[in-house]
């Protein structure tokens, strides 16, 4: 294993990124590449990721796979790094022309899909696309979460004028805060019909609040990303839907592409790995099922 291709994710402490890493690990095994798994400890830690990128490049790898945590901030460091080593981007973009290849999922699009899913669920429950809805963002200042919020709010405004956003909240990355916020939203807005919880942790907290208050029928919640807990909520009808990306493939294909690049092969410069809405209706699909149950270990 002489070839080293580090993969740098945004936040190693999150399940989503662990799936990405699992995919990369598998690719490493399959292709005989050494894949150090790196990443900051929080999606908002920009400086941390730049530091890790610098360190990774100093190690003299064949290529680097990175998911830039912030569009603008990582631009220059990636330009700098690309001078000595090919860079493959996954998941999110950066303000740089230096990527050799790009495997992304469009978070703005993800937000739009969530809006569509929420509207559909509300319509199914009440017969009309009307009422008060809320959005809870896990942390402020995180690029991908900002994009989801932007896409969601935009889609609601342009496509579903009947829905009004009565609360647009930012939590602090803690499930408990999401839970407390949601219970208070329920108290303060008795007419609430829908909520978008734009990442895994918030979906867990918000789902718990809905479950505690047994409001699954009245308030429709769309989450983002999936794990055992949220899939369970989906089955029980606590959550109405989940927007699911394909992190495993991003990790796997990222490393695979990087290896190809390092060997001088030609690769596709842009791949969209897509985002899907999962509901009770389609969760049994083999394709969806594979997304919901990635082979992490």
């Amino acid at each position: 294993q002489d070839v080293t291709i580090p993969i740098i994710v945004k936040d190693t402490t999150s399940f989503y990124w662990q799936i990405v890493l699992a995919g990369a690990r598998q690719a490493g095994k399959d292709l005989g590449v050494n894949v150090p798994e790196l990443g900051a400890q929080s999606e908002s830690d920009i400086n941390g990721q730049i530091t890790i990128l610098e360190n990774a490049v100093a190690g003299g790898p064949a290529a680097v796979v990175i998911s830039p945590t912030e569009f603008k901030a990582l631009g220059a460091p990636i330009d700098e790094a690309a001078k000595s080593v090919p860079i493959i981007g996954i998941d999110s973009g950066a303000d740089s022309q230096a990527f050799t290849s790009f495997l992304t999922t469009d978070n703005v699009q993800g937000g739009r899909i969530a809006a569509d899913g929420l509207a559909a669920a509300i319509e199914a429950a009440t017969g009309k696309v009307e009422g008060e809805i809320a959005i809870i963002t896990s942390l402020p200042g995180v690029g991908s979460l900002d994009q989801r919020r932007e896409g969601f709010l935009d889609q609601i405004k342009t496509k579903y004028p009947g829905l009004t956003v009565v609360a647009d909240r930012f939590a602090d990355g803690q499930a408990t805060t999401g839970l407390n916020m949601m219970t208070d939203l329920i108290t303060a807005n008795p007419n609430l019909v829908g909520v978008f919880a734009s990442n895994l942790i918030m979906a867990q907290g918000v789902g718990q609040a809905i479950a505690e208050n047994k409001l699954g029928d009245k308030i429709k919640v769309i989450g983002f990303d999936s794990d055992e807990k949220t899939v369970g909520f989906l089955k029980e009808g606590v959550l109405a839907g989940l927007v699911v990306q394909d992190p495993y493939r991003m990790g796997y294909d990222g490393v695979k592409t990087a290896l190809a690049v390092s060997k001088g092969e030609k690769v596709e410069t842009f791949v969209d790995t897509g985002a899907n809405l999962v509901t009770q209706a389609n969760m049994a699909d083999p394709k969806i099922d594979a997304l919901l149950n990635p082979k992490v270990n």
Partner: protein
Amino acid sequence: MSVETTETTKAPKKGMNILFSLTLLGLLLFIWLLLALATDSFWTPNNISNLLRQGSMTAILAVGQTFVIITAGIDLSVGAIVGFSSVIIAWLITAGVPVWLAIILTLLMGVAIGMFHGFGIVRMGLPPFIITLATLTSLRGIGLLITNGSTISIPSGAFTAFARADFLGVPSLFWMVLVVAIPAFIFLHLSRWGRYLFAVGSNSEAARLSGVNVNRTIYMAYILSATCAAFVGILLASRIGIGNATQAEGWELQAIASSVIGGTSLFGAVGSVHGPLLGAFILATINNGANLLNVNSFWQRIITGFLIILIVYFDQLRRRRQR
């Protein structure tokens, strides 16, 4: 810092006397009254239940933290212990360990962490800030390693139902506050052990010369704090139904803030059990009220900061005038 500020602060004006004479409990009730007048939804049984639930975990952490602060120490690891214990109990339960045993094992782990802190402070001579900061870092790492960065989902059942349940119309979580606070009160205020905590915090040399086992007292304080944190971890796991090592980040600061708002002095030897409880519920009320008033979450932070300053300032003025 023992800055003498008595002289520099001007005597408050007559008109504000009433405000200053409010005790912390009075202040809490005052805020509640304001909120009840300002919103329809505050003074509903449902919301009061929510409020009690929301403040409970910080309240228990703050009580544990108070023991440590009274000895003039600090325990920065409590947030990490909460997250870590949630992982441990989720892990044990999904591994098929009976719930009661899982709870006991998790609490014992809390005891072990507290003993480690005591060891570091007493035997290795490390500052409490450093040893608990180190534990904070390491425990999050261990917890992440166990869960591999993800969450352990606890199968629904009696355990996860517990945190949602009510008993005699009061949320079970609030009962847990009482379960911790009443023995804590007896321990701190009525038993000699509590007095030794104060003595050690006031002048550990004097305590030692009086035959107080200073080392044991320090061990005790940190064990109590870590065990309270492990207990909160169990409650958290029950409440959100998952074990996740990155949860409860920053709760240590909330616990310390609650304790200080409740009148505990970071220089040691001053504190009570009821103070931190009130402090925790004041903080919970601020958040709950801001949510109900639909205050922008950024404003919420700004307001919280200012209210902390205001409350502690008033409380200090009140104490000063009492003397």
